[in-house]
């Protein structure tokens, strides 16, 4: 099911969970794995809102953070260099 979702859809789900203050870890980790698979398709908004959601709920998933960090660096540099 999650495999058919776009990065924007995944982001919207975690954003909603964080906005409601619902740290549903199994769902968060499943979304995290799917997000990792699609990380190169993510735009700045997907990256920023996803990391915001995980941080707000205090759900720490290092592979996700590493991937978001690496992809964010690429996006930030590609635009400004």
């Amino acid at each position, binding site marked *: 099911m999650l495999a058919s979702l776009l990065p924007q859809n995944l982001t919207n789900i975690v954003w909603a969970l964080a906005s409601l203050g619902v740290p549903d870890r199994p769902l968060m980790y499943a979304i995290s794995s799917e997000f990792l698979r699609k990380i190169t398709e993510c735009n700045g908004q997907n990256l*920023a809102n996803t990391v915001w959601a995980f941080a707000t709920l205090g759900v720490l998933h290092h592979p996700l953070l590493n991937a978001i960090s690496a992809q*964010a660096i690429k996006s*930030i540099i590609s635009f*400004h260099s």
Partner: protein
Amino acid sequence: MEAIAEASIQHSRSLNFTAQQIANTAWSFSTISVLHFPLVAAISQASHRMLGTFSAQDLATTAWSYSKLVLKDVPLMTSIAAESLRKIDDFVPQNLTNSAWALAKQQVCDVPLLQSIASASIPSISDLCSQDIGNTAWAFSTLGFFHLPFMSSISAQALRILSAFSFQEISNTAWAFAKIIFEDSPLFNSISAASIARCRECAPQDIANIAWSFAKMALLDHPLLDALSERALARSDAFNSQDMGNTVWAFASLVVRHDPLLHAIASASIGEIYCATAQDLGNSAWAYAAL
């Protein structure tokens, strides 16, 4: 060909970060205390170039995030400070306190910005919560920046909501006002009363800070010192060398001799002696000699 070029520019834009996304990414990583140096460097570089597009909230969030991660980036902080000054009218109270706190953490004493923060905060001082009060007072004192109307407003608001303060916020506030030797009997009297009433919540650092503050203000308050001393005795094993140095310095400078406290601190000091700085040792030695 033009259509392809246009589409790829659109695509590259959509991949990129807006100011708000940059600030929120910085906030997220610092909130979970994860430090990725290359990301931090990229954010700093992008922020420098895009500061003109940062809103008041983005400026305060970015400054706060770098400071929370204990990352010293003075060039970035200086640029953020200059941009913040231009947009100070858009700052809400929380942006103001976060900016002041960040400046203090980065040790960037930007006087024009501090003056603007102070002036902008006064009309909305009653919106500040206990954490804002403690942090702002701490920030201004740490930077050694004195602004009488602002500190008077902070003191008034602290008095209004003192019952909502955590013990750490009480001790930070006492420390901040004592550091700049701000004579304010109603505030110090209330801090004393609250400290005595809530002594059981007091951590070693709070005992040391409150004792130090009253000594610095030369306020000889026996009921407070008795309460602090009793609490310090119960927690003497948890004192670090700086807390011990400050506590004995405070009692000695008020010429108050509590033998059980002095003995307890002396025994605890022996175990901590290798961690003590020259200043801690000097304070303690002076205190024991003076008493």
